[in-house]
């Protein structure tokens, strides 16, 4: 074929190709524009979120300046000066996440105060409550995670005792066995050993679900024990019913959404995956054995906050050569980025 023919064919091909693209776009039609009122409404909320974010960053900067000037505060520098650590009572209650409306008061004689963004510490004893559609995640002493669902009220007592007045709470007492949390209700007191469990107490009906470990429940009539995968219900008449609840049941989703996210910057991917297993109740498996080693060797970069465990996994995993998907049985399958 002559050069001129090749050039003509090439130009013809280009025009044809352009015609095809034009036809595709034309036939797909105009993209829908959202209504103006939706735009304005969402923009207002986003603008407010941005203002809060900027204020948090300024406040962090001010605290750091004060700390350096005073010279009496221990500052931990983690590569990018992410956090400032104050010398404080290790028994303080730490606020991990607030979703919606959450309030605190020192005692029944005090006024309720709304927990605002940026509040990260409270005294170790007091009362907490959440509003409708809200949630709260706090850290008790010894790293015990206490999460409150909507319309829930608790009192925090010394030595890791929590009194549930009404609503639903989730407790993750961590990986190591300990003498643990005492969760007190009028129906009974649950004591855990190295456990994840949930208690719902509403209008005299009591429900305990154990995700991991074992919980002993002392009622006025009896002492009951419940193990991982078990649900135990006690109605107002005192009748006890047991049933099963899987560790990855969607019923646990509300607690996952309030999970405090550790700082994984500079930590191994395998640590992130272990945390994911713990928070989602789903086992992590690998397409090939080598990938488990790769997870052990891969160091993560980046810090995320206020995301759910799977959102965190999405954001941080994209910085690596690994990806994930859900297997048919709900397990999390890790595979290499380029799959054929």
């Amino acid at each position: 074929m002559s050069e001129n023919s090749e050039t003509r064919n090439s130009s013809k091909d280009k025009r044809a190709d352009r015609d095809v693209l034009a036809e595709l776009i034309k036939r797909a039609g105009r993209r829908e524009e959202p209504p103006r009122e939706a735009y304005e409404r969402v923009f207002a909320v986003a603008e407010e979120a941005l203002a809060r974010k900027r204020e948090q960053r300024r406040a962090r900067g001010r605290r750091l300046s004060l700390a350096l000037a005073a010279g009496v505060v221990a500052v931990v520098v983690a590569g990018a000066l992410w956090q400032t650590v104050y010398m404080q009572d290790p028994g303080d209650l730490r606020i991990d996440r607030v979703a919606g409306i959450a309030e605190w008061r020192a005692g029944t004689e005090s006024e309720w105060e709304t927990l605002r963004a940026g509040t990260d510490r409270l005294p170790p004893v007091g009362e907490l409550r959440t509003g409708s559609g809200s949630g709260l995640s706090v850290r008790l002493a010894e790293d015990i995670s206490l999460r409150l669902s909507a319309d829930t009220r608790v009192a925090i007592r010394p030595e890791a005792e929590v009194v549930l007045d009404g609503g639903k709470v989730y407790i993750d007492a961590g990986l190591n066995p300990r003498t643990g949390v005492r969760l007190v209700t009028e129906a009974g007191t649950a004591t855990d050993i190295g456990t994840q469990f949930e208690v719902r107490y509403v209008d005299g009906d009591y429900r305990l679900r154990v995700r991991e470990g074992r919980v002993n429940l002392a009622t006025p009539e009896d002492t009951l024990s419940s193990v991982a995968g078990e649900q135990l219900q006690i109605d107002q008449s005192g009748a006890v019913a047991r049933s099963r609840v899987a560790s990855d049941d969607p019923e646990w989703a509300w607690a996952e959404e309030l999970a405090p996210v550790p700082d994984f910057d500079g930590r191994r991917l395998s640590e992130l995956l272990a945390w994911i297993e713990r928070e989602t109740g789903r086992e992590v498996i690998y397409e090939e054995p080598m990938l488990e080693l790769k997870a052990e060797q891969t160091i993560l970069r980046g810090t995320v906050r206020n995301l759910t465990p799977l959102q965190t996994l999405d954001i941080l995993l994209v910085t690596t050569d690994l990806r994930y998907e859900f297997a048919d049985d709900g397990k999390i399958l890790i595979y290499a980025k380029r799959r054929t």
Partner: protein
Amino acid sequence: MAQTTHIDLQTARNILAGDDATFRELFDRFFPRLYRFAKVRLDGDHDAACDVVQQTFCKAIDNLDSYRGEAALYTWFCQICRNTLIDYCRARNRRMQQFVLLEDNEPVRAILETLAGPAVDQPETQTWRSDVGRLVQATVDALPTHYGDVLEWKYVDGLTVKEIASRLSIGTKAAESLLTRARAGFRDALGEMLDSTDDLTPPSVT
């Protein structure tokens, strides 16, 4: 191994540093696209789409200082939106529209093979419009700034290059160049998604 950093990293930093104009511009660009992204996956539910996109913006803003520029900022927002959709649907025992299947190679290839077949009126069917049309629109949405707009103005609204240039307050040559780049970008993006650029011909174009 050196890692390239996306230009959007500076955009994110500027926004956090107080640049309201840049934030407004980003919102203008991202909101309609994320709205469409969410709405098609929520069975056309406008209120739910607004809720999801609002949550997406709040989460993205809260984590904006962790954005490291490994991917485009819109891609990063989309990932957050996708996860927010999953959580939203799960919390309400709701099924997410399985639109994402179209982004796998095999089903899309099957659709295009059907389109390339002898049935001349297939492009006019509702199935073609709803399935491939959405894929095309999603590809247009995913393109960089102004690319999607100029393609729509040119091929849907029928604007001339001069009219497009006037809308963007640029010269005609610049508009032509932008249109060329937009077509190339669209072709590459769709081709990548389909794993083949040879099957793009609708039956009515020969």
